[in-house]
């Protein structure tokens, strides 16, 4: 399990914003938590998968894509802020991500 520190969210947010700025060829200053990934950035669902691969390597995560898929069906992501929040949950809970729904 990756160690979450005070800086982790900022670190994740920076990676996410850099990634979308690079891939979608937009200025980073145009991307904030409310930015809509498809409507504002012309992004696509594959980008989400590519980001997961990046975070898996960076934080040495034990997470299966199907777990994320099941979670995302119930908690759809449309904005950059929601995407960062979900990445934080993935880093924190890894393959136990679905337990969050069971607890609720």
């Amino acid at each position, binding site marked *: 399990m990756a160690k979450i520190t005070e800086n982790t969210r900022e670190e994740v947010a920076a990676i996410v914003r850099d990634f979308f700025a*690079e*891939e*979608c*060829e937009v200025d980073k200053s145009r991307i904030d938590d409310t930015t809509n990934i498809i409507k504002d950035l*012309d*992004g*696509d669902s*594959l*980008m989400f*998968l*590519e980001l997961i691969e990046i975070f898996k390597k960076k934080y040495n995560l034990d997470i299966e894509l199907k777990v994320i898929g099941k979670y995302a069906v119930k908690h759809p992501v449309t904005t950059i802020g929601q995407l960062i929040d979900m990445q934080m949950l993935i880093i924190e809970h890894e393959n136990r991500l679905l337990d969050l729904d069971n607890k609720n």
Partner: protein
Amino acid sequence: MPREVVVTGMGMITSLGLSLEENWKNLCEGKSGVTRITSFDVSECVTRIAARVPENFEELSRKYIRKRAAGQMTRVARMCVTSAKMAVEDAAIDFDKVDRSRCCVIIGVVNTGNSSVEQGTTLQNTVFKSMSNSMPAWISLEYQLTGPSFAVNTACASSAYALSLGLEMIRTGQADVALVGGADSIINPEEIRGFNALYALSTANEVPEQASKPFSKDRDGFVIGEGSGMLVLEEKSNALLRGAKIYAEVAGYALTSEGYNIMAPLTDGEGMARTMHLAIKNAGLAPENIDYINAHGTSTELNDRYETMAIKKIFGERAYRIPVSSSKSMIGHTIGAAGAVEAIITALALDRGVIPPTINYRCPDPDLDLDYVPNVSRQATIRCALSNSFGFGGHNATIVLKK
């Protein structure tokens, strides 16, 4: 009366240039795009030459294709989409003013370009780069076109088939606009070795620009080319209403198969002759209306012999007075793109009254005695012209273009 179909926009990328005008200038000047292959190790290949698209193509493609999409396309798909966008620009068509559900996209695809020389393939984009329907899909996506969109594969006749099917879609009222064409590259070691094993390629490596010599006695096989060609076809009255420039009318076509051999054309050009005959008939014309033939003219022993025989069968004594030229002498054989690229050249010949030559014609073959427009382009008034495409597997197409 069937609806008439016209060409209102064209885009092409070949070894001779990255725009319609650059290509046309170089074709009329009789230049060759064939060079030594330096993009990969050719030590295992007997043939070491090809007609490769200039390196600065990638710079051009970045003007037309978003980075994200570009990374999911092969270089060949980028050529296709770039040519499509140049054709749409040339047609000055505004899709916001057209019913997008009546716009179709038909692309001749033989190879997607996802070969050993393709760069930047990742697990995430492997499938997109390998999908043979990716090129029509990307074009439909780009303009949000919702009419029929598909790929057709009939080897070297593929994009001539695409053009013919686009004509038919508009003729029969199933579409008002058709974006048709093709893109291809087989400049990679595995394809070269494969074609070398069939003795299909020229091995005249010493002087690359003289290697492709259609209809010459010393022809020794085709030279691989690469590139893309895209055309915007429109129903004629719609094109006239919006004041579009009309390059040519697509007057007719024929698609046939020979049912004979996976590689060799039917003996004495019987299949080729039947295709030209049916195309002229489909256009409602007679052989005496044809003033120019853009030949398939591959520079192989059998194609050039049989195509010459087929032309004589159809046109009789008049065959000797019809200019016949092979663009492959300059740009090589662009395989899946050839039908569209050569239809574009034929349309420009009609529009501008100039016939591009067959270059490297220095050693006449006594059996091949037509007017091959040797080495130098020629001014001519052309009323109607044929563009021939004949593919491995016996897939034949002839397109009839009219001024």
